[in-house]
C-alpha cells in the first residue's frame, strides 16, 4: 500500500469557512421572511377581508355567475315566494315578484342594477351549495339553480302594513325586539318590480317623489315628539335621583330669547311631572328640559344611540343626523329637545330605539336574512340573532317603558289600549317646511306586549297630521295582525 502525504498550502481555517456564509444566511433569512409575509398577508386577506370585498358595491364578479346559475328564489318566513326566476321555453329568464308593489323596496329589483335584498343576497342567489352529485341530475340545461334565501319578513304582516299605510307616503317598520328580526318593512310611494324595466326611465328622471328610495331605511325625517324618548333618557342621566321630582306648569307656551315653543294645538297641560309631560307630549315642559340639559352630554347620548353613525345593519341606509353645538342658544336647545331642530332620522333607526327600550336596554342587530338553503331545501347557513350592545341600564329601560305605556293608557296613543294586548309607545307630530309647503308628519313608535315585548312598530305617514290621528291607527292594525298571525 502506497501512501502519499499531501500538504495543503493556504488551507482555510474552519472558522473562516463558517463565517463566510453569515452574510448569505442573513440575505436568505431576510427573503424567506418576505415570502412568509406574503403568505401571512394572503391568509389575512382570506380571513378578515373576504367578506368586505365580496360584498363591495364595486364587485362585479357575480355578473360572471349569471351565466352559470339561475338566480335563486327569495322566500318569506311563512313560506311565500317573494321573488323567483322563471325560465321560459326559449331559455329567457324572467324575474317574477308575486307580491308586486308590496315588497318593492325591501326585496328590491334585480334588473337595471340591484337594490334591497336582491342586492344584499346577490352572492347567495348566484351560487349553489347543492352537492355536485345531485347537481348533475339537472344537467339538461347547463345552468344550476342558485341557493334560496329565506327572509325574516312575514308576507301577511307585510300585506297588512302595506294596506294600513294606505295612500300615505311614508314607511312602516316592524321588528322583533329580542331577536332583531325584521318582520315587515313598507315604503311608499312604491313601484312594481315586475315592470321596473319598462318604467325605469320615468322612475329615475322623476326627482320629486323619489319612488326608488326605501323610506324605511333611507328616508330622513324630523322625529318630532318621538325624539322625546331620548331627551327623557338624557334628562334621567343628567339628574339621577331628581328627575322623578320634575314638575312643570304648562301654559301651552314658553318664550325664551324671542323663540316661542307651543304645545300642539295650543293645549294647556297644566301642572305635570316628567311622566305626564312625556305621555301628553308636552312641548313646553320638554323645552324647559332641553335648556337644563348639558349639551355635550345630550350629544353623547344621541351619538351612542347611533345618530351621525352607520346603523349596524347590512341593508343600505342613511345616517341619522343630530346637530347641536356645545354653545347652542336656548332656542336651539328647546327645538332640539322636542325633536324639531336640525335632527333627522330614519324610521328603521326609530324602531331600533324603541326596540332597545322594549328589550331591557339591549339593542339587537336588525336583520332580514333568516337563512340560506339550496333550491332543494337543504340548509346552507342561518343567521343567528346578535346583540349590538347594551345602550341603557335595565332600570332606565323600565322607566321609559313605564312612560311609554302611560302614553297608551292616558296619553296621546290611547287607541292602542282598546285591544287584547298591552302596548307602549310614543307619538310624534313633526312639523316640516319643504319647498314652501308646511305640514305635519305623523309618527308613532311603540311595542307590545309591555311585560314581554313581541313586536316593535315604527310608522311615519308623510303629512299625516298628528301621530294619534294617523300613525297610531296604522300601528294598531299591524299589532292586531301580528297577534292574529302568531297568537297572543
Amino acid at each position, binding site marked *: *500500500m*502506497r*501512501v*502519499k*502525504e*499531501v500538504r*495543503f*498550502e*493556504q*488551507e*482555510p481555517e474552519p472558522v473562516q*469557512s*463558517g463565517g*463566510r*456564509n*453569515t*452574510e*448569505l*444566511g*442573513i*440575505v*436568505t433569512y431576510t*427573503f*424567506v421572511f*418576505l*415570502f412568509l*409575509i*406574503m*403568505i401571512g*398577508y*394572503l*391568509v389575512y*386577506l*382570506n380571513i378578515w*377581508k*373576504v367578506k368586505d*370585498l*365580496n360584498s*363591495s358595491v*364595486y*364587485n*362585479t*364578479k357575480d*355578473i*360572471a355567475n349569471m351565466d*352559470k346559475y339561475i338566480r335563486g328564489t327569495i322566500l318569506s318566513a311563512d313560506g311565500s315566494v317573494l321573488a323567483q326566476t322563471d325560465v321560459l321555453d326559449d331559455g329567457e329568464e324572467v324575474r317574477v315578484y308575486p307580491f308586486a308593489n308590496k315588497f318593492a323596496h325591501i326585496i328590491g329589483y334585480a334588473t337595471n342594477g340591484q337594490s334591497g335584498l336582491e342586492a344584499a343576497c346577490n352572492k347567495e342567489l348566484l351560487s349553489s351549495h347543492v352537492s*355536485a*352529485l345531485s*347537481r*348533475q341530475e339537472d*344537467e339538461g340545461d347547463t345552468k*344550476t339553480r342558485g341557493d334560496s334565501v329565506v327572509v325574516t319578513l312575514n308576507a301577511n304582516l307585510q300585506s297588512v302594513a302595506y294596506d294600513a299605510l294606505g295612500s300615505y307616503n311614508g314607511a312602516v317598520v316592524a321588528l322583533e325586539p329580542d331577536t332583531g328580526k325584521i318582520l315587515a318593512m313598507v315604503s311608499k310611494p312604491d313601484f312594481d318590480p315586475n315592470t321596473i324595466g319598462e318604467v325605469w326611465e320615468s322612475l329615475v328622471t322623476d326627482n320629486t317623489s323619489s319612488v326608488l328610495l326605501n323610506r324605511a331605511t333611507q328616508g330622513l325625517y324630523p322625529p318630532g315628539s318621538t325624539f322625546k324618548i331620548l331627551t327623557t333618557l338624557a334628562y334621567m342621566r343628567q339628574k339621577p335621583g331628581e328627575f322623578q321630582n320634575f314638575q312643570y306648569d304648562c301654559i301651552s307656551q314658553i318664550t325664551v330669547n324671542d323663540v316661542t315653543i307651543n304645545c300642539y294645538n295650543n293645549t294647556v297641560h297644566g301642572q305635570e311631572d316628567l311622566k305626564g309631560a312625556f305621555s301628553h307630549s308636552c312641548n313646553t315642559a320638554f323645552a324647559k328640559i332641553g335648556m337644563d340639559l348639558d349639551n355635550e352630554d345630550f350629544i353623547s347620548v344621541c351619538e351612542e344611540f347611533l345618530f351621525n353613525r352607520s346603523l349596524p345593519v347590512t341593508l343600505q341606509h342613511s345616517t341619522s343626523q343630530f346637530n347641536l353645538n356645545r354653545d347652542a342658544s336656548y332656542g336651539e336647545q328647546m327645538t332640539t329637545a322636542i325633536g324639531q331642530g336640525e335632527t333627522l332620522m330614519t324610521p328603521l333607526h326609530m324602531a331600533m330605539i324603541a326596540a332597545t327600550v322594549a328589550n331591557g336596554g339591549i339593542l339587537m342587530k336588525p336583520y332580514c336574512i333568516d337563512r340560506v338553503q339550496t333550491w332543494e331545501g337543504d340548509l346552507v347557513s342561518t343567521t343567528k340573532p346578535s346583540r349590538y350592545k347594551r345602550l341603557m341600564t335595565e332600570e332606565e329601560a323600565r322607566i321609559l317603558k313605564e312612560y311609554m305605556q302611560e302614553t297608551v293608557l292616558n296619553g296621546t296613543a290611547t287607541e292602542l289600549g282598546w285591544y287584547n294586548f298591552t302596548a307602549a309607545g310614543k307619538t310624534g307630530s313633526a312639523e316640516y317646511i319643504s319647498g314652501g309647503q308646511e305640514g305635519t308628519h305623523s309618527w308613532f313608535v311603540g311595542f307590545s306586549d309591555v311585560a314581554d315585548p313581541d313586536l316593535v312598530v315604527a310608522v311615519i305617514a308623510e303629512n299625516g297630521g298628528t301621530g294619534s290621528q294617523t300613525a297610531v291607527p296604522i300601528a294598531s292594525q299591524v299589532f292586531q295582525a301580528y297577534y292574529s298571525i302568531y297568537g297572543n
Partner: protein
Amino acid sequence: MINLIIQISKYLILLLMALYTLQCFTVFRLKDEEAKGYLFLRQNMLMFFMHFVAFMVLYLELSETTILLFYGAQVLYLAAVLVLFGNLYRKASRLLINNMCMLTCIGFIMVTRLSYEQSVKQFKIAVLSSIVALLIPVIIRKLRFITRMYWAYTLLGIGMLGLVAIAARVTYGAKISFEVGGISVQPSEFVKIIFVFAIAGLLTHARDFRRIVIATGLAAVHVLILVISKDLGSALIFFVTYLVMLFVATRNPFYVLAGVLSGSVAAVGAYFLFGHVRVRVEAWKNPFKDYQGDGYQIGQSLFAISAGGWFGTGLCQGSPGAIPLAAQDMMFSAICEELGCVFGICLILVCMSCFIMFANIAMQLTNRYYRLVAVGLGTTYAVQTFLTVGGATKLIPLTGVTLPLVSYGGSSMLSTLIMFAIVQGLYMLQRDEESKAEKRIQEAWSPYHGEANYTGVQEGYYEDDRYAEARETGYGSEGRNGWDEPGNGFYDPDGYFGPRYEYYADDGPDYRERPYQEERYDEKTRRK
C-alpha cells in the same frame, strides 16, 4: 357529470400541489441520495398528474380538440426538459429543475385557461428558451471568460436600458418593450441578468471604497433610467439586487443601511416628483377612490382573490379575465381565484424553495465572483416574486412585473430560464471542482496513487483526461475508505440548506482557472 368532474378536480389539483410543495421541503431531511432520487421522481409524477387533471378540465370546458394535441406537446416538452437537464447535467440540482418545470406547468395551465392563443405562443417561446437554457451550463463551463467581461456588460446594460427609455413604445404608461419582427421584446428582463454579472465583476474585489463608489454609481444609472422609463418594478428589482450584492461583497451592514435610507428618500422624492409614482401609491392606499380609473386593476385583483376563497372556484369557473393584464402582471390573482388561495400559498412556497436553492448554491460556491452572481440572480428572482404577489394582494403598491415562469410573457420566460440555467451552471462548476479536489485526496490516500476512478466524472471533460484509462479498465474502482462515494458526508450536493463544510481547492493542479490569478491582474491594473 362535467360538474362533478370539475368539482373533484378542483380538490385533486389542490392536493397534488400541496403534496408537491411539501416534498420541496421534506427533501432537506433526506440524506440518502437514492431516497432523494425517488422523491424527485415522485414530484415529477405529481406534476404530470396535476397537469393531466387540469387539462382534462380545460378540454371539457373549452371543448376544443386541438387542446388534446397541445396537452400532448406540453407533456413531451416537460418530459424532455426533465430528461435532458437530468441526464446531460447529472450534477445539476434536481429540485431546481423540478420547480422550474412545475412553475412552467402551472403557467401553461393558467395561460391556456385565460387565452388559448396566447398559451400556444407562450409554449413556443418556452421550447425555444429551454433549448437556449440547455446550452447555458455548457457555455459557463467551457467559456468562462464570457462571464468575466463585466465592463462590457455594464455598458451593454446601460445602453440597452437607455435605448428603451428613448425609443421604446409606451405600453400602459411605461416604456418597456420593443417590437422586433412582430415579437415584443422587453430588454429590461435581460439587462437584469447582465446587470448581475456586471455588478458581481465590479464588486468581487471591492476592497477599496473607490471601487464601491464606481459600482454604486453605475447601479444608480441603471435604476434612474428605469425610473425615467416608468418601469418602477424593474427599478426596484435592480436597486434591491444591488444592495444585497453590495452587502454580500463587503459584509458591511452600514452600506445596506445607507442604501435603504437613500432609497427611501428617493422613493419619497419620486412620489412628489413623478405623477405615475403618485398614482400607483394612491391606488394602493384606496383602490376604490378612483375605481373606474387607476384603482380598477388592483380592485379587480382583490375581488378575484376573494371570489376564490381558500379552495378557488375551480378551473374555468371564475372570471379572472376581468382583471386587466391577468395573464401578465396579475397571474397570481387569477390563480388564487380559480385554484384557490391554498394553491396560491403553495405557489409562494415553491417560489421560496427556488430562492432557497439559489441561496444554497451560492453558499456552496467557493469562488467569490460566482457567489455574487448566484446571490444576485436569486435576489432578482425573490424581489420580482415579492413585487408581483405583494402587488396583486395589495400588500405593496402595484409595480407591474411578471411572476417568473408562470406569467405570460416571452422575454420573462426566456430570461428566467436563462437565469435558472446559469445558477445550475455555477452549481455544476462547483461540483466539478469538488470532485476534482476529491480526486486529489484520493490520489493522496489511494493505494493506487493517482489512478483513482471517480464514478461521477463525465467522459472527455478534463482537458488531459488522465483517468480515462482507469475508467475503462475499471482499475482502482473499488473502495478507498468511501472517499469517492457521494453522500458520505464529504459532500452533500443536493438540498442541503445552511452553512456546510467547504473544501478549498485553490491550490489545485489547474490553477490557471483560479481566481487569485485574476486578483494579481487586478492589482497590476490598479497600480497603473
